[in-house]
Every structure is written in structure tokens, then in C-alpha cells.
């Protein structure tokens, strides 16, 4: 029997027999509150620990209350979701959670995006009757990317699920037990000392302010207001597909031109585009790929734009350090070029230049701080703001984002092709590389630059792309759990791929850890819409292949020489180090 009959708050309905009470209630348009429950990415990752107990409901004939999130319906089940017993229990549970919570909402970064705060608002818990000893942890700020405030943690374990089940990074576990149990790294180690890749998926799923991106807002304001500094801002392609959401726009719209105006109004001296560097990355990466392909180099070649992914293999696949491309990420290439080529061109002392990135990512903060990424002798990138942070700065500055007039990027580091736009989505880097590689191999312009076979929403995809009668096998993974499977294939010698693109976040950078918060139930949909907006942006570009970017061509002519050449190696390539597993 695929369906069962149930009664829920006196509403009778039929639901699939595998449904949970929570799902059944949704069908009856009853919203049962949840905290720990989480479903991500079309149910492939579910946090069903049933630990917060906020979703308890009364089921006739059952001795105690049932957690709606993890109790399956049964035929003729009678459920009450807001009986006095249920509401009283929920209120007490909420008071218990709040009794071990700082309640400093006014100072909390998560305020307004906090599920615990929402619940407290719904329940008007009044005076808390169950105050007592509360956790007293020091706020953990060791890393450049993520701040942990365990005092705000409600032990929902969502972060643990995201870190272990989805990303297989494995840095978080329940540590200790009882009241003192925390979710954190082994030995309470600071995040900086662990194999955390700072993908920020944990931050995205945290229902409170326990996990936060580390803010770079203050130093950026300081730089902007420092008359001795020339402050450049670069914006990653995924930012433009999500920033509007911070200001109430429906997902699925790019806001490139308003964003440019907004950044200029904030006071940045030059508004450039990471997209420019994405085109540059394709020049280097596609050339490297062709080089490996034609000279019997290490295959498959893996992309290296994603800093979380880079750190992931440095910790967990130390035996495969020669597999990824040596290309720096677009963010870093941008910084390197800005502080050399562009500085020389304008005759500016590179030490005066402050490069600020706006990224959909938290790991980029960590990447910017990697010491070896300093080709000019200065750190390539100085500060990294997430999409959420730039929105916060705009609000702070009172900029009415939605009514801003259109603006244009500054040149030469602001011009980009469609191939750069699609860096934002999973499969995009691969597609952009193919656009160039195919034309270089065949010597002919492509009839269509759309490689539909590498697009899609699945976390792990593969395709064969025929170029000049030869089959190029590509694989695309987004989400590190998927990436791990490809790496294990390589390790076991079973991989038949030539090119593999990996992005740490599900869906690629559009689903990055620094993007606007989205209700997890809708995240899959939102990521799809952001991706569509990116493809539309690409389709609307006059030039869609990176190698055709005239400013890139000019850069090689004036400064770099050959792609994958000596100067390029010095400025645009890097190496990898094995790191401890902890």
C-alpha cells in the first residue's frame, strides 16, 4: 500500500506511507517548527538526528511525544501538532535551549538569519524559568575564514553532517558528552590547525550564530578611508547572481551593473572584475591541459580554482599533489596582475595598492592569507569580503541597492567574456577550458560554444566531448564528497578521465559558503536559479571564449609573453604542500 490515511489536527488526508509526520504536516499546510532537521540538495544529505526535539507532536496511543521529523506515518495515525501538551513541551525545550545561549541578539551577526531567534519570536517565551549554568567557551578565531562561538551552539549537529556526510572533510565530531559535549575538531584544536577546508557549508547550515564567516569589513573600511591607499575591488562571477537576494530580489537575477555602481559608491577607487582573471585562468589552464595532453603529462588534470578543494587534497590526498593544475585561482591571478602589470602600467607603487575581493566563498579568505600567494613580493590579495559582507557594508552605508543606476567595470581589468561568467557554476570552468582547447586543437572556431553535456545539477557528472575526432573524457564534481570518489578512482589507477573539474560547494560557487543564507529546504532550487542566471549572463555576452578577450590578449602581448610561459609561471602558477590530517 503506497498511501496511508492519517488525521492531523482533525484534517484527514492521504500521504505516502514512507512520509514522516513532518512531511505529512506540510501536505496539510501545517508548519511544525524544526531546528536540527535539515535536508540538503535533493535529499542526498539529511540531518535526521532528531536531537532538538522542537518538532515533537502528540500521536494518539503513544506514551510519549514523537519527533515529527523522524517518525514515519502509519495508517489511521491521529496526530496533534499544537495540543497544550505539545506547545508546553516546545516552550520548555526552547527555554532550555535559551538557558544555555548568550541571547545577545543585538550584537550577533546571525541576528535576522537565526532560526533560534525566529522560534523565540514565535513562542514569546517571556521570562526564562530555567536559567542555570551556561557554556563559557572562548570564541575561536584562529582561522582567517571561520569564527566559532560554541556558546551559541545548540548541538543540532547540522554542521557535523555537512562536514562529514556531504563534504567528507571530517573535521567535526561530537567531542565529549553530556552538558559539555561540543561539536568541533579533535582535541578542541583551533580550526586553523585542522584539515578544515573552510568551504563554509557548516556556516550555511548553522541555525544560529555559532559558526560565522570571519568579517573583513572593518579593515576594508579602513583601507577605503586611507588616503594613502589605492583600493581595488574585484568581484567573483557568482556574487552577481546572488547579491540581489540580500536586498529582497527573487533568486535568479544577475545584478552586475548595479553592483558596480554600488561598489563605486562605497568608495573603492577601481571596480574591477575577477572575471577578467577567470579568462586569464583559462588561458593558462587550457594551455597547461593541452600541454599535458600532447606531451604525455599527468592525466587527468584537475582544476585548481577552488581553494577549499586545494586544501582538501593537500590534507587527504597527499599522494596526488601532482594531479591538479598548477594554476592559481582567478582571485589570486587578479591580485598578482594588479600588483605587477597594472601597477607598472599606471606607475603606482604596488605597496600602496589594496586588493579587496568580493567572493561567494569563505575559503577565499584563507586562500588570500596563504603566504606563498605573493608573486609581487606582496600578498596578492589583501582582504576578502563574502557576498553577505558586501551586502552588509552597503546597508551600513545606506545605499539603496535596488534603485541604483547601471555602472560599468573599469578597464583593463574589468572586461570579461562569457567563459569567465560560467566559472560561477559547477561545470563552468571545464566548459570554458573546452571552448578554448577545442579551438586551439582544431584551429577552427566552434560552431557553438555551449557544451550542454557538461552542465547540470547533479553533483557528479561525466561526459565525453569529441574534439577533432578524439574523445576527451571529462568529469565534474561539486561537493567534496563527490570529489573524493573521483580522487579515489585516480588513486586506484582506474580513472580514465582527461580533465576533472572540482568545486567544493554543491552547485559550484553559486552555492558557496559566503552566499546569502537560504532556507535549506529551498536551497537546491535557489542554486539552480542562480545557475540559470549565470548561463543567461554568458549567453548575453558578445565574446564568449576567454582567449578572445582583447584585454587578455593585450596583457600577454604587453607583459606576460606566452601562455604557460616563464613569466606566467612566476606570477600565475603555484605549488601544493602535503598537510597534516587532523
Amino acid at each position, binding site marked *: 500500500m503506497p498511501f496511508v490515511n492519517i488525521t492531523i489536527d482533525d484534517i484527514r488526508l492521504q500521504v505516502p506511507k514512507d512520509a514522516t509526520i513532518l512531511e505529512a504536516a506540510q501536505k496539510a499546510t501545517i508548519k511544525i517548527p524544526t531546528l536540527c532537521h535539515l535536508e540538503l540538495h535533493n535529499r542526498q544529505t539529511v540531518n535526521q538526528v532528531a536531537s532538538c526535539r522542537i518538532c515533537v507532536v502528540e500521536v494518539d496511543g503513544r506514551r510519549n511525544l514523537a519527533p515529527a521529523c523522524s517518525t514515519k506515518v502509519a495508517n489511521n495515525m491521529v496526530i496533534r501538532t499544537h495540543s497544550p501538551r505539545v506547545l508546553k513541551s516546545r516552550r520548555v525545550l526552547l527555554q532550555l535551549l535559551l538557558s544555555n545561549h548568550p541571547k545577545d541578539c543585538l550584537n550577533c551577526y546571525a541576528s535576522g538569519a537565526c532560526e533560534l531567534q525566529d522560534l523565540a519570536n514565535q513562542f514569546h517565551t517571556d521570562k526564562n524559568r530555567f536559567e*542555570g549554568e551556561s557554556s563559557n567557551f572562548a570564541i575561536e578565531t584562529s582561522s582567517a575564514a571561520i569564527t566559532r562561538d560554541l556558546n551559541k551552539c545548540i548541538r543540532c549537529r547540522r554542521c557535523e553532517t555537512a562536514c562529514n556526510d556531504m563534504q567528507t572533510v571530517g573535521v567535526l565530531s561530537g567531542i565529549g558528552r553530556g552538558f559539555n559535549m561540543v561539536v568541533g575538531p579533535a582535541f578542541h584544536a583551533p580550526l586553523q590547525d585542522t584539515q578544515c577546508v573552510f568551504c563554509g557549508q557548516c556556516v550555511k547550515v548553522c541555525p544560529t550564530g555559532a559558526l560565522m564567516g570571519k568579517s573583513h569589513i572593518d579593515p576594508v573600511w579602513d583601507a577605503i578611508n586611507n588616503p594613502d591607499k589605492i583600493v581595488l575591488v574585484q568581484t567573483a562571477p557568482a556574487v552577481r547572481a546572488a547579491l540581489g537576494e540580500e536586498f529582497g530580489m527573487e533568486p535568479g537575477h544577475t545584478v552586475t551593473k548595479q553592483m558596480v555602481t554600488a561598489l563605486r559608491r562605497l568608495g573603492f577607487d577601481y571596480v574591477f572584475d575577477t572575471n577578467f582573471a577567470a579568462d586569464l585562468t583559462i588561458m593558462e589552464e587550457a594551455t597547461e591541459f593541452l600541454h599535458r595532453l600532447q606531451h604525455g603529462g599527468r592525466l587527468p588534470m584537475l582544476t585548481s580554482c577552488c581553494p577549499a578543494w586545494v586544501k582538501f587534497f593537500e590534507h587527504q590526498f597527499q599522494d596526488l599533489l601532482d594531479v591538479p593544475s598548477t594554476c592559481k585561482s582567478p582571485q589570486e591571478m587578479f591580485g598578482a596582475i594588479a600588483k605587477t602589470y597594472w601597477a607598472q602600467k599606471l606607475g603606482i607603487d604596488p605597496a600602496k595598492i589594496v586588493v579587496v575581493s568580493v567572493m561567494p566563498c569563505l575559503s577565499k579568505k584563507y586562500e588570500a592569507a596563504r603566504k606563498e600567494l605573493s608573486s609581487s613580493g606582496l600578498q596578492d590579495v589583501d582582504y576578502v569580503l563574502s557576498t553577505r559582507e558586501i551586502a552588509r557594508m552597503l546597508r551600513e552605508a545606506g545605499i539603496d541597492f535596488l534603485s541604483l543606476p547601471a555602472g560599468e567595470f573599469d578597464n583593463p581589468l574589468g572586461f570579461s567574456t562569457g567563459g569567465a561568467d560560467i566559472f560561477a557554476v559547477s561545470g563552468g570552468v571545464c566548459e570554458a577550458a573546452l571552448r578554448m582547447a577545442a579551438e586551439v586543437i582544431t584551429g577552427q572556431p566552434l560552431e557553438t560554444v555551449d557544451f550542454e553535456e557538461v552542465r547540470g545539477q547533479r553533483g557528479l557528472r561525466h561526459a565525453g566531448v569529441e574534439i577533432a575526432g578524439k574523445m576527451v573524457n571529462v568529469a565534474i564534481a561539486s561537493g567534496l564528497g563527490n570529489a573524493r570518489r573521483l580522487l579515489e578512482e585516480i588513486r586506484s589507477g582506474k580513472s580514465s578521465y582527461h580533465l576533472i573539474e572540482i568545486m567544493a560547494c554543491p552547485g559550484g560557487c553559486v552555492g558557496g559558503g559566503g552566499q546569502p543564507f537560504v532556507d535549506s529546504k529551498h536551497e537546491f532550487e535557489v542554486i539552480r536559479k542562480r545557475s540559470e542566471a549565470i548561463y543567461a549572463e554568458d549567453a548575453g555576452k558578445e565574446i564568449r571564449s576567454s582567449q578572445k578577450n582583447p584585454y587578455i590578449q593585450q596583457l600577454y602581448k604587453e607583459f606576460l609573453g606566452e601562455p604557460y610561459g616563464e613569466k606566467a609561471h612566476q606570477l600565475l602558477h603555484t605549488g601544493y604542500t602535503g598537510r597534516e590530517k587532523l
Partner: protein
Amino acid sequence: MTRLATRTDLNQLADSLRQAPAAGAAKPQIFVGMSTCGLASGAGKVYDAIAAALQEKGLADHVQLIKAGCVGLCFAEPTVELQLPNQPIVTLGDVTAERGRQLVDELAANGSFSNPLSVDNAIFKKQVRIALRNCGRIDPEQISDYLRNGGYQMLAKAVFDWQPQDVIDTIKASGLRGRGGGGFPTGVKWQAAQGAAGEIKYIVCNADEGDPGAFMDRSVLEGDPHCVLEAMAVAGRAIGARRGFVYCRAEYPLAVKRLGIAIEQARAMGLLGEKILGSDFAFDIEIKYGAGAFVCGEETSLIHSIEGKRGEPTVKPPFPAERGLWDASTTVNNVETFANIVPILEKGAAWFRSIGTEKSPGTKVFSLAGDIKNVGLAEIPMGMTIQELLYDIGGGSSDGKPIKAVQTGGPSGGCIPSIKFDTPMEYETLTALGSIMGSGGMIVMSEGTSMVKIAHFYLQFTCDESCGKCTPCRIGCKRLHEILDRILKGEGKPEDLTKLEELGNVIKDTALCGLGQTAPNPVLSTLRWFRGEYEECLKRGNRPPTYRIDPVKCVGCHACFKVCPANCIEGKVKQPHTIRQQDCVHCGACFKTCKFDAIARE
């Protein structure tokens, strides 16, 4: 040890063991109880002394000296039991090495024991020993002892004579319920596991006896490990499992050791492993160690612990019978439950049902501890009253004071006041009193024990043992504990009692696992039966009680004057007395002595 290749081999061996002149009942037998309590009390020295004396007197071949498990008389350890041919067995308590030598001397001189100082037989009279039938009667490290007593015959029947369903039907018909606490019908559990999908199934014996004050499972494992192994193999046959695990506390080294020996011996004889008794049935057992987590007594936690994970519980359903160890159907029963299986199959469901009550057939082993004279194990028919157990078997309180309450079911149970001691003990009756049967731990508290402190103690235990997974247990129990702390320190507020009840009920109603759902029981039950003590604590704070004599009610009987240890009561016979408060030591002796209700405690 030779492998038993067929059932005939087993029968022949059992017969020869029974008839062997060396093992016959024709010889005097001396059993030395050598379980943990016995050994800690010096049983090893007693055994050595007896063995040496037997050598000296040339009796070594004429008397059988047996290293046995425990008979449950923990208060009298070391215990020695003497069995002369055709005479009733005699149990001696508090035996020293010297006394051991004397026994041998007497035996050498007279062929009998003169006037042995026996333990009161009444302790055994009211007991019915099913689970403990072999404890203290066989050498747990010798499989031959178990085989002589009919061991592994039920496994042979299950393998050769019965269909799996026959076994399950018998267990179902017997009405056996889980002895670990929940009281779930064992046969129903087995049936569900048998019907569960999947090729691979597991049998798990829960020997993570974590309730403080409960030690019957330890006693069974130390005294009769094969009865558990045989029952697990029978369960494997009935359910269709090929692998079993005994999850045992690391705190029980002797039990683990003896279990290990038993498994090795059973394997060597072909009673575990491939092709049991030459059949196609294969079943093997491994020991898994606990590592100090009370919550691992909860079956889902236990399963996660065997899997090598943190022992955090998960939501049921799915029940382990459906999806357990490594997602396969897993049948979890505790030691005592398994210990009942073989006798039920031997003697039939009707026999089992003839013992105990309608709803709770059979017996239950209780461990009596705390302020009780005869600390130890007692296996009694279900339905016996608490009174009978405490006084007829337990011998009353250890200090002669009246017994005030008992706590059953450990930290998950509740305190039962003396006014309810006439309650017959069954799963349902104890639940109705706000406690539970639990694993059978029974902590006795005599007059003078503070029930608020007891509740505080148990909550401390729960807070230490809470895994921290769910909100109500992690934070709620902590808050309960804090409120009790406050009350005991004299900082309680009147609304605290309502808070305890409210919070306790929400925790019961919403916690994820059995530990959390029962954690408030000690508080709620003491609040229910001893609310006055809480109120007194609130009123008095941490100040000791003050006693005052009401001059109107005092008849001047002088009884209080006599009992006061501080000599601070003044007054002449037949005249109202007074208490010199500055010298009072607040012991309450006068209060308890007064028969005229003339002394007020504030």
C-alpha cells in the same frame, strides 16, 4: 577437548560425565564461591587452604573441590557450600582460610562436618532459581560441568528436532519478558527479527549492566557463562542469525575472562562455530567491550558502540529487530533474559507460566544493596511483595532502623515508600508506583536517608552519563540537578517544586532515548511520595532541623531524655521536658522516640 562431531557424541559425553565415578555424587563436594565479591573477600585464600588441607590429609581424590560462581550471598562472602552424598547442601558464610582447614579436618576425622555455622536457610526458601540455577553449583571454567547438567541439549534440539518457529512459539507462549528493564515480550521480539528482511542477522547479548547496584548479569556471566552462550545460539537458530556479540562492561574483568574461556571451550567442542554438532547450522560469538557509558545499555546506543561509534542513541522505530547492527536485523536481549531461555525450552512454556504472575511470568533476580542486612542476589517469583523480599530474604535493614524506601530500576527508576511495600512486584505495578522494574537493582534506604539527596545523587549520575545528544536530557537534567542542588543548599524557592515537576514531565515526554525518558523518575517519585522532605528542605534550607517539645502534648515519659546522645533534654518524669538548643546535635533521636507527637521538627 575433542570436537563433538554429532549429536550422539554430545549425548555420549554427557552420559559419561554423569556416570563417571570421578564426578559422581557419591563423593563429598566443596564449592567455593569465587566471583568478584568472593575473591575480593578472600575466597582465593580459602580455596588454597582447603586444597592444601585435602592434599595433606590424602583426601584430594576423595573429595571434589569446585571453584564455583556466586550463590548470591554477597554479605557473607567468602562462602563455601558443602554437599555430602544424600544430604541437603549446607551454605557457610564468612569462611576464613583457617575455617577452611578445619572443615577438611572434620571431614577427615568424622566423614562429616560438625555443627557447621550455616547461613539461614530462609534466604533460599522463598527463592526459585531459574536464571541462577547453575550459579555456585558448577565450575564456570569447565564446560564439562555445564554438559553434565544437561548443557547444550536444547541447542541440539533446536538444531535437529525443532523448526525455528517451534522455538519462537515456545518462547512466545512462555510470556518471557525482557529482564533488562523494558519488559518487552522476548518471543515477539524474536518473531519480528525472524520476519525481518535481509540475509544477515545478528544476536546481541546486552551485558552492559550499568545500573549502579545491579549485579545479577555479572553473577550469571561469572557463574554460568555457557547458559548465555547456548541461549544465544538457540536464538541464532530460531531467528536465522550466524553471528552473535556479547557486549560486556569493561568494569567486569572476571566476567569477560570466564566468558572468553567458555567461548573457546564451546568452539573447541563444536558447539559454536561452523557445522555445530555436524549440522549445517553455524553460529559464533564474539565479546565486545563497553568503555564506560551507561547509555550504552540502551539498545541503539549499544549497537552504535559495537559499530565503533560514539554510543549515542537513535530514534526508534526502526527497532533493531528491523534495522540494527550495520543496518541488519539485530536481536538484543540482556543476560538474564538469555539465562531463562534454556530452562523454558527444557521444561516448557506451561511450567514457566506456572511461576510468577499472569502478566509477568517467571522469576526475576533482584540485587539487594544499600542499608539491607543480606546484601546479595535473590531470584524470586514475580508477584512477590517488596515486603517479603526485603524482610524474609533481605533480613531487614542493616542497622536495625525501619526501612524507609527502596529504589528500584537504578537511575531510571523511582523510590518506593514503605507504605507501598505490600505491592506485588510486576512490570506494571512498579510502573504504576512511578518506578520501573529495570534490571532488578534494589537499593534499600533506611530511616534517616534524605530522599532529596537521593534524587540529587541520581540526577548527578544522569548528568554524568547523559550523552548530550538531545535537548531535554542534555540541558533539562542539568537544570533538574541545579534546582535540587539549590534546594539542598537551602537556596530553594517555593516554585522550585512545581518547576521540578513541570520540567521532569517534559523531559519524560520528549527525551530521545530510554535514559532521558526515565531520568526524572527519581525526582518525580520522591516528590510524589516524600514531598514533605522537599518542603522541609525549602523551609529550613541547609540549616539542620530544630526540635522543640510542645509542653502541652508532652506527658513527661522521659523517653527522649534517655535517648538523647547530647544530654541536652531537661525535665523530670511526668513534667513537660525542654531541649537545651545550644547543645542539640540535631540527630532527631528524640523526635523518633516520642510516642505522643509532642516533638516538632522545624
